[in-house]
């Protein structure tokens, strides 16, 4: 009996060939040399450093220092987050279509409204497209070394991200209640609080809490560019190859990230029960106490960090800032420099793509034991490993990998792989746990071996979700890859760092523009891929 050929096969083969044709040059550009890890010299350096990890430094003086730096990190994250919310809320309200009055009808000023929204969205793209560490690096030059630069950098980048996501959340829900209020002559704020917030408050808060968690991780590394916190301490210890201190700091990272996780899941659980108290007041005593506590924490952060933001408002500092900004213009667009930036961009793309792909593979391998299919001991062990991997920020991994594999983009690839494996492993594990069990069980009952059961019963169910997670992570990693060069791990960051320390601002601004373009391009590519795969 003649049978048809698989019609999907040629497309699959072509896809595979294209992938190889794309990845091969990227692997060359990214200097993907796994054997570098096993060169005698690198092994010796890394071995010596790791041997120093035990015992972790625990002398009183260092611990006091560590405690202060940890508090500073938390304060930077909280203050930066508060600033970000202040930036984000008005921007979100102004840029969301759900609260547009001129769209009703359409009424007068529709053109103007759309223009305004487009301009605001562009501003948001710039705010979040430039990595927070680059903002910090710039602000350090204006405000000097210290936490102020970190707080402002977080405030701007996270302000941009929050505003975009807030606006999207407000648009994604049911828009009719708000529209009805607007049609009845209500103001934007009234429509927001009576029409949109009841449906969206939980998601908004939950996303904010998640971002605070991210801010804690981000502020850990601010110190690498001199913006205070644990990173500064880590940078010093690494430069002196003091393994004991590095070990203590890494342990602190782990504790911080786990605590932030726990706190944020506590918050989210509380949110689920909100509004069921049956009281007249919208906010019950526990929530009120929580809010007061949060407010106090933010206030304390600002006071303790002693940012001196008031000085920003003086005429002198405004003038010097304007001068500083002006020195970045015009961009250096000479062919030589553009070629150099182009090469750096390719390297950055290579780092982000290879790092994300490798991490997706490792994450999947680690997710299998982490979702509890191979016994509890292995489950807990893998979870600890995943938490450790993701609690160490990419930039710190990059400094470690630069020791292990030498300076260059390969260290960047390794750094992204390690951190992202931790993140994706956890997300993948959750996805596998939530996969519908029926296909898997049916195959098991038909005597299929467990590997085949996974490939035929579970994987087809979760693949779209896994791919979406990996693509989201790629969007973050392109931003990360462009700053890993600050510690010598290749890409655009290396160029930017060198040019800024040579005061070549025109060249530096070209690099920043390239980072912005890359992040916008990757966002668009990833969104397209996700739509195509859905």
């Amino acid at each position, binding site marked *: 009996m003649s049978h048809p050929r698989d019609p999907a096969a040629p497309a699959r083969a072509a896809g595979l060939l294209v992938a190889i044709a794309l990845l091969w040059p990227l692997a060359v550009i990214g200097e993907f040399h796994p054997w570098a890890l096993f060169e005698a010299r690198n092994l010796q350096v890394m071995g010596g450093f790791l041997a120093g990890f035990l015992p972790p430094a625990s002398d009183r003086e260092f611990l006091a220092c560590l405690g202060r730096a940890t508090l500073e990190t938390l304060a930077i994250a909280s203050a930066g987050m508060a600033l970000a919310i202040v930036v984000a809320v008005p921007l979100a309200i102004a840029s969301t279509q759900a609260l547009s009055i001129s769209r009703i009808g359409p009424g007068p000023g529709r053109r103007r409204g759309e223009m305004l929204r487009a301009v605001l969205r562009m501003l948001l793209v710039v705010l979040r497209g430039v990595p927070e560490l680059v903002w910090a690096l710039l602000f350090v030059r204006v405000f000097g070394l210290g936490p102020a630069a970190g707080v402002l950098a977080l405030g701007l980048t996270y302000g941009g991200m929050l505003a975009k996501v807030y606006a999207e959340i407000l648009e994604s829900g049911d828009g009719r209640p708000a529209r009805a209020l607007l049609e009845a002559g209500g103001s934007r704020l009234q429509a927001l609080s009576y029409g949109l917030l009841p449906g969206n408050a939980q998601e908004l808060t939950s996303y904010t809490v998640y971002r605070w968690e991210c801010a804690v991780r981000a502020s850990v590394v601010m110190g690498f560019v001199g913006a205070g916190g644990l990173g500064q301490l880590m940078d010093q210890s690494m430069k002196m190859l003091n393994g004991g201190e590095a070990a203590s700091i890494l342990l602190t990272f782990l504790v911080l990230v786990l605590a932030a996780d726990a706190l944020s899941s506590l918050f989210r659980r509380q949110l689920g029960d909100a509004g069921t108290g049956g009281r007249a007041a919208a906010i019950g005593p526990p929530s009120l106490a929580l809010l007061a506590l949060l407010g106090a924490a933010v206030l304390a952060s600002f006071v303790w960090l002693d940012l001196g933001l008031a000085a920003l408002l003086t005429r002198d500092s405004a003038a010097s800032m304007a001068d500083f900004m002006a020195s970045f213009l015009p961009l250096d667009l000479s062919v030589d420099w553009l070629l150099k930036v182009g090469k750096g961009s390719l390297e950055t793309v290579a780092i982000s793509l290879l790092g994300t792909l490798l991490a997706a593979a490792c994450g999947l391998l680690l997710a299998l034991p982490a979702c509890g299919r191979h016994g509890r001991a292995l489950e807990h062990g893998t979870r600890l490993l995943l938490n450790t991997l993701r609690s160490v920020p990419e930039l710190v991994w990059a400094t470690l990998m630069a020791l292990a594999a030498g300076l260059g983009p390969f260290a960047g690839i390794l750094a992204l792989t390690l951190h992202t494996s931790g993140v994706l492993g956890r997300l993948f594990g959750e996805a596998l746990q939530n996969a*519908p069990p029926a296909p898997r069980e049916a195959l098991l009952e038909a005597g299929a071996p467990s590997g085949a059961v996974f490939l035929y019963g579970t994987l087809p169910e979760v693949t779209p979700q896994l791919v979406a997670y990996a693509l989201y992570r790629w969007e973050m990693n392109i931003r990360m890859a462009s700053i890993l060069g600050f510690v010598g791990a290749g890409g655009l960051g290396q160029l930017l760092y060198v040019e800024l320390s040579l005061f070549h601002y025109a060249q530096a601004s070209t690099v920043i523009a390239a980072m912005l373009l890359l992040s916008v391009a990757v966002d668009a590519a990833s969104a397209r891929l996700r739509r195509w795969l859905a």
Partner: protein
Amino acid sequence: MFRLHDASLAHANGFVALREVTLAARAGEQIAIVGPSGAGKTSLLRVLGAALRPTTGQLDVLDANPWALPAAQLRRLRARIGVAHQAPPLPPRQRVVTAVLAGRLGQWPWWKGVASLAYPLDIAGAAAALARLDLDERIFDRCDRLSGGQLQRVGVARVLYQQAQLILADEPVSALDPTLARQTAQVLTADAAARGATLVASLHAVDLALSCFPRIVGLRDGRIAFDRPAAAVDQALLRKLYASEGGQLPELSAVPAPLAPSSALGSHASFARSPLATVRDRAPQASDTASVPASGCWR
């Protein structure tokens, strides 16, 4: 072939699904299980398929006690048992060809399962199984593009492809219109008969069970109410079995309307109405022999 002795099954929540059930079958036998909803039909099939361990009692399947076997041998035993589910557990994004080929994963070496994901290794086999259910045209479609009835027949095709020695079918035709339901049941019985495999099917429609299966087991409240040849099952016995459902016998004609058959099945759709009247009084008529071959289960 299998021997279930004095088996009871209590679920984790305390619900007792089976009480002291004793049931045995020789190789090549074909048994239909009927009974009201909640009688324990699915539980019985899952116990026979070594998917649920009876709380008490003894089970021998294909000359082995599954619950005394080490894991690897239990897996090999299960590979010889095929199950057709009422709601086929197929991943929506999987292609039909892959879903059918997955039936033999228990017999294939691991590398074959992996390689077949890159390119289906036995398209001919999958196509042949699907062709018997008139679904070969959908072989490269994704499962989520199929209607509920088509999906159910893909599940049946998977069991056909598995070539199991014991076929357990849990309401395998519940989503099909009367004509297709009878044809599909007939494909199952013919396949089992041709290979000498044992077939146990739970069926909602009593008339289908009586017309297609030589031996009928009535199940009620987790107990076997009767177990006799189809010819010895009369209306009074059935009414007693279904007393909890108001004495109304569920028949093909009374089964809620299935999902609309697709264009691929258009040729059968024209027969969809004519057999209804004849099914009710179980009298063979010319119109039925036209749609069901002479070797069919029409007595």
